[in-house]
């Protein structure tokens, strides 16, 4: 194996699993340490810079960071149930506990002198707002067009209030609008041609995937009065056009929207609410914790039932029949749902909510203006890196770009599109992407003292306390989760392994005394003969079977061997460095920050640095 080149930002970035998994690459361990230190303002601003909506995401994020979290792997075979750090809910802690006035004072101020360039954003969801946040402070005049009165998009109109209080949205959307962003509410864009005619320098489309998929099965039309599209129904609930629902409710679909639908139903008069899904419980798209929340509220989830008919009497819905199926895998491993042959199941109900997926819809984009769509899905052709469409000054992001994802992906798209727009309007090649800003700094404070807390907590994951069920089911506006209190927030923060504090090996001073090998609690380090990676992986102190995790390999040492460290389950406890007599191991904090739109992403910035 070749010696690892730690100068490449990706190497240590991958070791920080959470940050690598986060679409916006938020420096997670850094803000968790700040939360542990009680520096909520600083933690909030690190989040705000990178993911724009810390308070919102701290309650609703899909948390791709958590399945990636090293703590989950480290706890395997070490206790009851391996669990990642509660990263998402720790983020909420800094949002809840920050000093709002101090935060406001540290926000960028509206630019006094604009640069004369005008940007239009379609839709005021997370993608557009991120573009606006990144570009407004640079002097761009950003106009956000929104069909509803207020900004926030899906976060405001579809995510129910018992998960996300409106004041959190108002606050975080407000921070962006306060940068001098112009929001044109109640303004639906019906024609891209007309918008382009207004001579904006660039247009960003962040209009989401607003159309809920319907279910065309017998009885759909006849019983239409009691059958609702989940997405539209949630919006109607938000706008208070809908204030109650029948006593018996069936929710069709296994995604997070279905979970929001069933839990909302419970609060609007639904007593017998059930979720029914086609495939297996495990395969449901909803996040495990959202399923858990629904079940906690007494909502059963029935699986392997394919909707067959809406049953109605005298024009009124009375129930639904379902075909019972089981999963079978063909030779290629593809799953098929095969009827079991049992009699169909019938469930009585008063209302049905259909939450079987959402779709993009661009009836407002004319097909003859240079924005190409693919023929198969009728989606705009968008570059995955630059977010540019085939019309050079039109960019897409969020669900509008590649179909339904989530808030944090929308934010990441927004950052990328903002970089592209900024470079585009400065006459630069938008395919040249800026490198992230990276630093690697020793954390050594004394012989055995580090500027981070390297004592590893043995605690299991802390649960976020819930408000009493009797209380939360009474009102759709009562937030269910209470958030961590100070004590459990600190304890949960201490579970973080500080994976950004890297073990850095300097080959030239190593005397091969084995001290690091002996002390390492996870058997990560081996001094061995070099060879092919597949072979080396089997000959280590502990086998390195997780191929997604890198081996850190040194150049050849004095004895002809190499140092190999398996990054997989390293605790970043620093004991290797503490036991190293020569300082060949050092604990260095790797800080990586994505380069957003602005001078840093311009070409001349690179030249100056070189």
């Amino acid at each position, binding site marked *: 194996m070749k010696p690892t080149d730690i100068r490449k930002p990706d190497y240590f970035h991958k070791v920080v699993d959470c940050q690598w998994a986060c679409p916006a690459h938020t420096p997670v361990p850094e803000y968790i340490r700040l939360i542990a230190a009680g520096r909520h303002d600083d933690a909030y601003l690190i989040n705000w810079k990178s993911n724009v909506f810390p308070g919102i995401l701290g309650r609703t994020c899909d948390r791709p960071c958590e399945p990636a979290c090293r703590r989950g792997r480290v706890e395997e075979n070490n206790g009851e149930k391996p669990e990642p750090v509660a990263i998402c809910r720790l983020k909420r802690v800094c949002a809840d506990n920050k000093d709002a006035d101090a935060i406001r004072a540290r926000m960028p101020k509206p630019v006094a002198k604009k640069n004369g360039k005008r940007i239009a954003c379609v839709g005021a969801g997370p993608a557009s707002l991120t573009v606006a946040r990144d570009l407004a402070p640079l002097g761009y005049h950003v106009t956000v067009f929104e069909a509803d009165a207020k900004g926030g998009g899906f976060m405001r109109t579809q995510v129910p209030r018992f998960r996300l209080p409106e004041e959190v949205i108002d606050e975080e959307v407000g921070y962006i609008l306060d940068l001098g962003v112009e929001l044109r509410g109640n303004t639906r864009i019906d024609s891209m041609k007309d918008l382009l005619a207004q001579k904006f320098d660039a247009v960003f489309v962040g209009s989401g995937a607003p159309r809920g998929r319907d279910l065309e099965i017998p009885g759909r039309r006849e019983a239409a009065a009691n059958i609702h599209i989940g997405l539209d129904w949630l919006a109607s609930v938000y706008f208070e056009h809908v204030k109650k629902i029948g006593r018996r409710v069936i929710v069709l679909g296994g995604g997070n929207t279905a979970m929001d639908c069933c839990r909302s139903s419970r609060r609007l008069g639904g007593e017998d609410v059930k979720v029914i899904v086609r495939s297996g419980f495990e395969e449901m798209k909803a996040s495990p914790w959202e399923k858990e929340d629904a079940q906690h509220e007494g909502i059963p989830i029935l699986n392997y039932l394919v909707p067959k008919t809406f049953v109605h009497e005298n024009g009124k819905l009375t129930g639904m029949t379902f075909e019972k199926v089981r999963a079978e895998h063909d030779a290629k491993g593809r799953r098929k749902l095969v009827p079991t042959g049992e009699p169909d199941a019938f469930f009585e109900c008063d209302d049905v909510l259909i939450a079987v997926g959402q779709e993009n819809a661009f009836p407002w984009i004319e097909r003859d203006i240079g924005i190409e769509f693919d023929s198969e899905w009728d989606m705009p052709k968008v570059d995955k890196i630059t977010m540019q469409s085939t019309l050079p000054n039109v960019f897409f992001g969020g669900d509008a770009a590649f179909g339904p994802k989530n808030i944090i992906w929308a934010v990441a798209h927004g950052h990328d599109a903002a970089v592209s727009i900024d470079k585009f309007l400065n006459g630069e090649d938008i395919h040249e992407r800026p490198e992230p800003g990276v630093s690697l700094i020793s954390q050594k404070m004394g012989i*055995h003292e580090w500027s981070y807390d390297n004592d590893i907590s043995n605690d299991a994951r802390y649960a976020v306390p819930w408000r009493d069920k009797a209380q939360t089911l009474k009102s759709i506006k009562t937030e269910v989760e209470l958030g961590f209190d100070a004590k459990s927030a600190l304890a949960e923060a201490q579970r973080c392994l500080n994976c950004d504090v890297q073990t850095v090996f300097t080959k030239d001073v190593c005397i091969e*005394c084995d001290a690091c090998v*002996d002390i390492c*609690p996870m058997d990560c380090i081996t001094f061995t003969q070099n060879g092919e990676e597949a072979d080396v992986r089997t000959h280590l102190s*502990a086998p390195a079977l997780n191929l997604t995790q890198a081996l850190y390999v040194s150049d050849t040492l*004095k*004895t002809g061997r190499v140092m190999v460290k398996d990054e997989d389950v390293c605790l970043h406890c620093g004991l290797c460095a503490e036991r190293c*007599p020569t300082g060949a191991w050092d604990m260095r904090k790797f800080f990586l920050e994505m380069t957003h739109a602005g001078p840093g992403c311009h070409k001349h910035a690179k030249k100056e640095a070189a």
Partner: protein
Amino acid sequence: MTYIAKPKLHHPSLTCNAAGFTRRDYEGAVSTLCAGCGHDSISAAIIQACWELDIQPHRVAKLSGIGCSSKTPTYFLSASHGFNTVHGRMPSVLTGANLANKELLYLGVSGDGDSASIGIGQFVHAIRRGVNMVYIVENNGVYGLTKGQFSATADLGSKSKKGVTNTDSPLDMVGMALQLGASFVARGFSGDKPQLVPLIKAAIKHKGAAFLDVISPCVAFNNHPGSTKSYDYVREHNEAANRLDFIDGRDEITVDYAAGELIDVTQHDGNVIRLRKLAASYSPHDRVAAMNYLHERSAKGEVVTGLLYVDEDAHDLHGHMNTVSTPLNRLAAKELSPGKKALEKINAALR
């Protein structure tokens, strides 16, 4: 030393041995020795060996004297019996303990100061008597706790950290052990665990006085150019007589070597030590030849390591004394004072 305890979390693939313990269960408190100390590697090798042999920690007694090396029993086998004796007196206390209860595994851990200087007389007699034990000397050639003066095993002409040359002749503990009748004599190096772990395992399984000299560089005071006990010097001059594969009675012997390259040594309990010869003419069964070989190589400045001598049919102190099969500490008043009649019988036999 470190300020934090070693985290309890362990590698997810860590397994239990037949005794139901993981390797981590054989650890002790976190070491307070200097970073990089060879002694810590020896502790790790002892932990590994005991885990691999499925040893029950509560059936082990670890005894030591005074010094850096004698601190190490705290850092392994925390569930075993331990005894820190007066300086240099470990061999006597171990002998006494062994006489009282021959069923425990006795692990004597000492250093070149504790055994070669103040305790040399004790060392000599424990070996000479053939006490059933593993006697490990963690040999770094200096008095580490008092900041690096030459010890009795420092080689003539070797240099101290300050540049002073040693003018005293060294005491060769391996040579002495051979001469004193130890039935298992080996030398290892803390920086070579693949050799050291099987040596410790073989020594543990040997019935009789097993002496193990382990060169263990003192990183703080004896790891500089001019030292003959530094990592670099030992690596450059290491002359391994053989490589060991310790084969447990249960394991099938599957590896094939060319004829003449292997020597199988069967121990009392059926365990086999398989030696791969590195020095062509070397036989570990010949005490005199071993002494000659050792001196020849030593004269050339080489450090001979490996299993140097083993007597497969060794007897221990209890054998020599023909003690009863029950450990003495379990003999009750009934056995110890059998009554007037028995006494009369004994007296009659002596008349």
